[in-house]
Every structure is written in structure tokens, then in C-alpha cells.
């Protein structure tokens, strides 16, 4: 089966500096890939280049199609993007924001159809924002806004979802709920790539982890394989506590490596 996303030799320069140095990545349907790495590793850059939002050199294929050759709408039908910046410029109701996700699928001035409405409904239900549907999105709290924007990305209903730090600002219950949603998406045959800072979440919920540091993929594989004490010390510079609970790994960063631990 064709990978949903296939990146090879990706190089990106930003502001004159090389940020990604020939990176390879492949995402199949059914995978929930956690993209992890220290600040400045290039995770956001990777996600944005994968959608052609940045100039890059190398090859990026979305479901077999070359991103450089695809028109903007074509890309929008294959992959949805959830940005790190939670920007909502105007005081629009929540339902309007979520419904924006259906725009790439509508032609011209066509009005939304029943299928669009159903998808929007489902997205709002999944992100637990259906209760706010008429409230003004800009009046919500940071976490609520984040969920609304995630619902928008879900409403886009694409085979692939690329999310940049989607759990930032969410309370624990909603963080876990989001992880569940991503896992369900993967299980239904789609692919999700989410960059995460919370190693604990990444370890418990992702099917595969990709560790990026200094613009290159340093390790990839199952969470237990990638998140070893040595890796954590070398890449993150932290020590951590490892355990198992409820059938999934628990990884909790403890302290700066080389510092005093008790």
C-alpha cells in the first residue's frame, strides 16, 4: 500500500540557516506517529514542509503525489494541518470555525450539504466542543480554543493529519481524549503525525515515535525502542523514570542529566 506520506532527502533553509539536513520519513495508513525532539530540532519545519508551506529541496509525496506539483486544493484534500499558533482573527462562532474545515471540499459558492454538516457535528463531538457551538470562539479559554481548532482539522476529514503540538494548553483529561481520538483515527485507516513535547503521552499512545534532533532523524521505532535512558540523556539532556502501567510504558522525565537526583 502506498504510504500516506513519504519524505526523502528533505532539506530546508530558514533565514539563511539550514534547519533540516536531508531527512527521511514515511507514514503508512493506520499509524499514529509521534514526532518528538528538543526545541529547535526542526519538528515544526518538518510538518510545514510536508505540506509545501515552506520552500524545500528533496521529495515529498502525499499519497504518491508530489507535493511540489499538487495545487493547494489537492494538498488540502490529502492532508490537514493543525498549526502551533492558535490564531482566530475574527469573533466568529465556534461552529463556523469548525465548518471552515469543510471548505476545501466545496466547489465555488456551493452551500454546505448534509454530509458536511454531519462531519462537522462529529468533529465537534469528538473534541467535546459541541456545547459551545454558538459561543464566540475568541471568547473561549486557551484550551477550549485549542480543541475548537483541532475539531476544524478533524472536520477536514483527510487521510492524513499533521498536528503541531496539539496537546499544548489542554488539561490532562482533554489531552488524553485527544490522544484517543488520534488513535481511533489511525485505527480507522488514516494516518496521524503529531509533534509532542510530553514524552509520557507520546510513549503511551503513539504507535511509532520519530526522534528528531538538529535537523535529522536520530531514531525511530516503537516507543520503548526509541526512548531509552541513553537517548534521553544524549538528545534531551534529562534523566527519566521508566515503568509500565495498564499495559503501556510510563516515561517521566525527572531531572537535568548530570544534576543531583535523589
Amino acid at each position, binding site marked *: 500500500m502506498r504510504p500516506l506520506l513519504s519524505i526523502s532527502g528533505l532539506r530546508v533553509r530558514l533565514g539563511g540557516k539550514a534547519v533540516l539536513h536531508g531527512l527521511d520519513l514515511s507514514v503508512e495508513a493506520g499509524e499514529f506517529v509521534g514526532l518528538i525532539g528538543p526545541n529547535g530540532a526542526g519538528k515544526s519545519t518538518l510538518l*510545514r514542509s510536508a*505540506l509545501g*508551506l515552506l520552500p524545500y529541496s528533496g521529495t515529498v509525496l502525499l499519497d504518491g503525489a508530489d507535493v511540489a506539483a499538487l*495545487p*493547494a*486544493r*489537492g*494538498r*488540502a*484534500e490529502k*492532508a*490537514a*494541518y*493543525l*498549526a502551533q*499558533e492558535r*490564531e*482566530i*482573527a*475574527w*469573533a*466568529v*462562532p465556534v461552529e*463556523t*470555525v469548525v465548518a*471552515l*474545515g469543510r*471548505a*476545501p471540499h*466545496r466547489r465555488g*459558492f456551493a452551500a454546505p450539504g448534509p454530509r458536511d454538516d454531519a462531519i462537522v457535528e462529529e468533529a465537534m463531538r469528538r473534541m467535546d466542543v459541541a456545547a459551545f457551538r454558538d459561543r*464566540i470562539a475568541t471568547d473561549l479559554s486557551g484550551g477550549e480554543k485549542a480543541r475548537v*481548532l483541532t475539531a*476544524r482539522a478533524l472536520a*477536514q476529514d483527510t487521510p492524513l493529519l499533521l498536528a503541531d503540538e496539539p496537546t499544548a494548553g489542554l488539561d490532562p483529561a482533554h489531552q488524553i481524549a485527544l490522544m484517543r481520538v488520534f488513535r481511533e483515527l489511525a485505527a480507522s485507516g488514516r494516518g496521524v503525525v503529531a509533534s509532542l513535547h510530553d514524552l509520557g503521552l507520546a510513549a503511551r499512545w503513539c504507535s511509532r515515535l520519530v526522534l528528531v534532533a538538529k535537523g535529522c532523524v536520530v531514531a525511530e521505532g516503537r516507543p520503548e525502542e526509541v526512548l531509552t535512558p541513553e537517548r534521553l540523556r544524549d538528545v534531551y539532556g534529562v534523566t527519566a523514570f521508566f515503568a509500565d502501567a495498564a499495559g503501556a510504558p510510563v516515561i517521566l522525565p525527572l531531572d537535568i542529566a548530570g544534576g543531583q537526583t535523589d
Partner: protein
Amino acid sequence: MSGTARYRLLIAALALAVLVLFLLSLTVGPAAIAFSDSIAALFQGEASEIGLIMREIRLPRALLGLMVGATLGLSGAVLQGYLRNPLAEPGLLGISAMASLGAVLAIYTGLAAAFMLALPVLALAGAVLAVVILQALAGARGNPLLMILAGIAVSSFAGAMTSLALNLSPNPFAALEIMFWMLGSLTDRSMTHVWLAAPFILVGWAMLAALGRALDALTLGPETAASMGVDMRRVQFLAVFGTAASVGAATAVTGAIGFVGLVVPHVLRPLVGGRPSRLLLASALGGACVVLTADVLVRLIAPSRDLKLGVLTAIVGAPFFLWLVYRTRRSLA
């Protein structure tokens, strides 16, 4: 009432207001003509005095009021949506400033005295030049910040050149004429002005109206919009050229009319639920209402003193801003 139903009601109300104001504009003037007579004369095609006044003096004035007002409202809404800034307005890109400069040069060199159409044509040329400079400065890539900076540069340059022309003018009559033209006026425009401006204005409208969906997507920021299938270069192209064509032509025939493009979208935004695409049509109609009202007031308040349109729109616009400040304060408190 659902959002869509409220929106439809708003559009209907605005459209009705435009119609009423258009008819009102047709019936205000020094000649005391009964309402039914004036409307009848419009359609009768006879060369009677009333018919001439209606068709050649009042009709172009009302038409231009409608077209210019709609243009200012529409381009204001587009620019605010594109730049994601509620303080953006058509003048920001410097297009009306360059159009004014073209007109000023026409007056200054005496061309305007020699040929009646010299002024609007040179003003249009100014608008075209503005766009060329904008594209050269900001590039086609679609970065709104670059566009704002380029627009400010063009606008400052045009303003400086206009001041220079005023400064160096050896003829106090020319200086006065320049100043009055820049205050904006619809007085004594003819159907020739309408035919000159209409094609550019209509093309501009078509370009601006096509941006509805893209502006909605831009609510979430340019990157997310791009990821949702919006072609940012196309958006920049349509926004800039659409504004240039419509606002350039409007400024060319009426001078600089401020405030409308800024205030109208701002005031109507809450009434359309904040959606940029819905704001386009609403602002066009709202802008037409404001300019038609101002033009009627110009003729009613001081018919002998030739009040300038730009002055009245500013007088009407300023209290709206005060009300906006008051309302914002209350909501923040």
C-alpha cells in the same frame, strides 16, 4: 434566529436602504421637481428640461454615489480580511494616494483645464503605477506584512509629491482647486464620468468578490489557510489588483473620500457574525448607504456652500468610532 437567517435579513435591510437612498439622491437638488415627475422623466427619454436634469445631472451623481460607496465598503472589507487587521482600509495600499497624485498633476500642469477627461485618466494612471510599484516592492509571494509596508511607502511618497505640487504651485487658484479636489466631491459629475469609471469598478468588484472563501479561511492565519487549499499568491493578486481597479477608478472621478472603507466593515462585522465572506456584500451595501447619505446631506445642509463629501464622511465616521471605543470599553470592563 439562526446566523444565516439574520444575515439574510441584514442584506435585505441594507439593500432596501440603498434603494431608498438612491431614489432620495435622485430627487434632491436645486430644481424643485416633484418625486413622481422626476422618476417619470428618467424613463421618458424626452429632451425636456426635467428629463435632462434627471438623466444628465442627477442620475450620474446617484450612480456614482452608489458605485463609489460600494467600492469603498467592499475593498475595505477585503483588505481588513486579507491583512487580518480591523484597522485596514483602502488607502493603506497607497492606491488612492497615487490616484490623487495623478489628478493633482493633471490640475497642476493645466491638462485638466484643456481636456475634461484628463483628470480622471491621469488619476487612473496613478493607480496603475501604484500597483506596479507595490508588486515590485512586495513581490508576488503573498506576505501581508510586506504588502502593508510597501503600501505605506507608496502612500507616503504620493502624499509628499502632492504636498510638493501644492507647495510649488505658482498659481493660488490651482492650489485651491487641488485642495478642494482632494476633499472629495460628487458635484456635477456627468454620465461620461460614469462610463469612464464603471468598467474598472466592475472588474474590480468581480476580483474582490471572488475572495470570500479565501478570506474565511484566512481567519485561521495564512499558513492554516494555505493548508486548507488557499492560494496566497492568488489572494494577493486579486486583493491588490481588485482594489487598484475599483478604488483607483473611484478616486479618479470623485477625489479622496475617507473613512468609509474603514468604518463600514468595522461596524457591520458583528452583524454578520464576524465572517469575512459575509462581510463583503454587507460592506458594499453599507458603503453605498453611507456615501449616498453623505451626498444627500451635502445638498440639503448647505446647498450654497458646496460642502465637500470627504468632510461629511469624516463627520459621520468619527462618531461611529467614538461609539466603537465606548462599546469596546464596556465589553472589556
